[in-house]
């Protein structure tokens, strides 16, 4: 009996170890640290997950992952991944900037990549930043054309320059399409709790609707769920953000401003695997396919042919450089 057991155990052990060998491609060991909100947040983190999943499905390489649930875990999680032999660590979101900066400096032989950050400087770090203002400009064009009242709204999450950049690009798109249109703006709060307050989001939306807004764009994480809900309840239109949120209230979501974090995640892994990992800042805008707008079966009826051609035209003119969308972050103001 004992002998049988030993054989079985030995067999199992061999199976496990051979499996492990098959899974690892040489010394390549990727890792990703999702931020608060979690892997399935139907938004930012899930976009990254989509890119990672595509990479895993294509290559069969296992990507180690961790979901951060409080601020103190970010750096710990990264250090842990390095200890476990990760050769590339992908951080998600500007909130991980400080952590990745510290860990990247301490581990010069490991590669790092981070999304939504552009201001760090390490020889082993690649940074992805998006021209959110350009994508917001496009949905601003759509909002201005879909609005009957001439007043549109914007609800932001936490009041930070990134979210101001969304608002500013949106306003530019609206004003370029309809000069006399009014853009109402609200920020949910000044602390990270502002990302998860759907009741406040729905109140802000209601307040904007009371003041005449009939299309409301949100860049507010979980708070945005309340925005879409309130707009749908009042029979108005909302605009989704980051991932395609058109399905959340079919018929009441005009479109979604897409931020292709999946492209960034996929590209990071692919480059690191092939050994062509270049560091530095990568800026993704409309021209690079990094930002855009969503058209699918849920909003096909809401987007008129004129709207579509106007948005496509605006996109083409941004790509060609004919339109330059002002970035709030460049001078902390929204000049028109």
């Amino acid at each position: 009996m004992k002998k049988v057991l030993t054989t079985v155990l030995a067999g199992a052990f061999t199976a496990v170890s051979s499996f492990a060998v098959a899974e690892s491609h040489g010394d390549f060991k990727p890792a990703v640290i999702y931020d608060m909100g979690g892997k399935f947040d139907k938004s930012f983190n899930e976009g990254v997950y989509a890119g990672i999943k595509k990479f895993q499905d294509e290559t069969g390489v296992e990507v180690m992952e961790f979901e951060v649930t409080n601020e103190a875990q970010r750096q710990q999680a990264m250090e842990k991944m390095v200890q476990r032999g990760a050769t590339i660590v992908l951080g998600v979101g500007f909130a991980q900037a400080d952590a990745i900066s510290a860990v990247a400096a301490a581990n010069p032989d490991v590669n790092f990549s981070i999304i939504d950050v552009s201001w760090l400087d390490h020889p082993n770090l690649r940074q992805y930043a998006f021209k959110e203002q350009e994508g917001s400009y496009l949905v601003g064009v759509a909002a201005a054309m879909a609005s009957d009242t001439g007043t549109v709204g914007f609800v932001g999450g936490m009041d930070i320059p990134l979210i101001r950049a969304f608002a500013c690009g949106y306003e530019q798109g609206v004003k370029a399409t309809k000069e006399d249109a009014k853009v109402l703006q609200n920020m949910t709060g000044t602390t990270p709790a502002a990302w998860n307050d759907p009741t406040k989001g729905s109140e802000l939306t209601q307040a904007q609707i009371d003041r005449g807004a009939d299309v409301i764009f949100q860049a507010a994480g979980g708070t945005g769920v309340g925005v879409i809900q309130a707009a749908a309840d009042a029979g108005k239109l909302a605009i989704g953000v980051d991932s395609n949120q058109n399905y959340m209230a079919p018929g009441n979501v005009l479109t979604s401003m897409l931020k292709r974090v999946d492209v960034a995640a996929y590209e990071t892994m692919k480059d690191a695997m092939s050994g062509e990992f270049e560091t530095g800042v990568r800026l993704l805008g409309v021209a690079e396919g990094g930002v855009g707008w969503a058209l699918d079966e849920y909003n096909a009826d809401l987007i008129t042919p004129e709207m579509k051609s106007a948005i496509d035209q605006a996109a083409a003119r941004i790509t060609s450089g004919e339109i330059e969308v002002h970035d709030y972050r460049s001078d902390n103001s929204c000049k028109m």
Partner: protein
Amino acid sequence: MADFLYQLLLSLDATLRIATPLMLCAMAGIFSERSGIVDISLEGKLLSGAFVAATIAALTGSAWLGLGCAMLAGIFMSLIHGFACITHRGDQVVSGVAINILASGLTIVLGIALFKRGGQTPSLPREDRFTPIEWWGVDMMDSVPVLGTIYRQLISGHNMLVYVALLAVPLTALILYRSRFGLRLRAVGEVPEAVDSAGISVTWLRYRALIVGGALCGIAGAYLSIAQGGNFVREMSAGKGYIALAAVIFGNWKPLSAFMACLMFGFLEAATTRLEGVALPLIGEVPTQLMLAMPYVLTVLLLAGFIGKPRPPAAIGRPYHK
């Protein structure tokens, strides 16, 4: 001017919507605190109520079942609190904080396990939620100037749970001051020894107070996730339980005063959401940060000078030893 008055009316309407969960939680707090149990766990009960309501409504498609289970969830959390600090005479604040942390973590873990959406539950279709009720004769009243608008905006057109919350306040006052249970409840929060020597169980009385409070918090939670909102989002209670507790203290542990405090907090928030980016006469545009800080600034000012000396129940926070 007419536009300003109309906006004011809409702010009052919003006040009611915002104050609803506060009112329910404040009444829950009054029941519990008047019986002598510090109830810092309002937040956690509210959050678990919201989660259970959204989950059950999403799984079964019934808002009523969601509401019922949310009340059970609130009661369950209350019973844990009671088990720790009534039966085992633990510290009430510690137990309350533990419940808040438990609710915060458990809702996310269960939410991810059930729906795989980062702690969110699926959005409910309109028919599975408590939707606004249009009162009788709204269209007829429209022809009456001023009153018609007030009737349509302020009185009619809320969901059922708003009216439940408005009813909960006089009911709480009635139970507290006009019933035998209320008399004993107040006594047990002041001099539990007297209640005990009259042959009434202090333990059972306090448990009952917590059960009522738990059910009220459950209703408040259901309001957040299946009436005003359409799904659960992690940490969606966003400190409302604590604000309700502040309202209880503002109101000196009296239902009607606490109700007024809830309305004040509600109005402040409604005003901040509406005044952001609007240029006021004489003052001009008020910065967002100042508007957001207003409720807290006012709380400090009111507590410092205008409320008077609060008089909490004498036996509050003290476990009862025979």
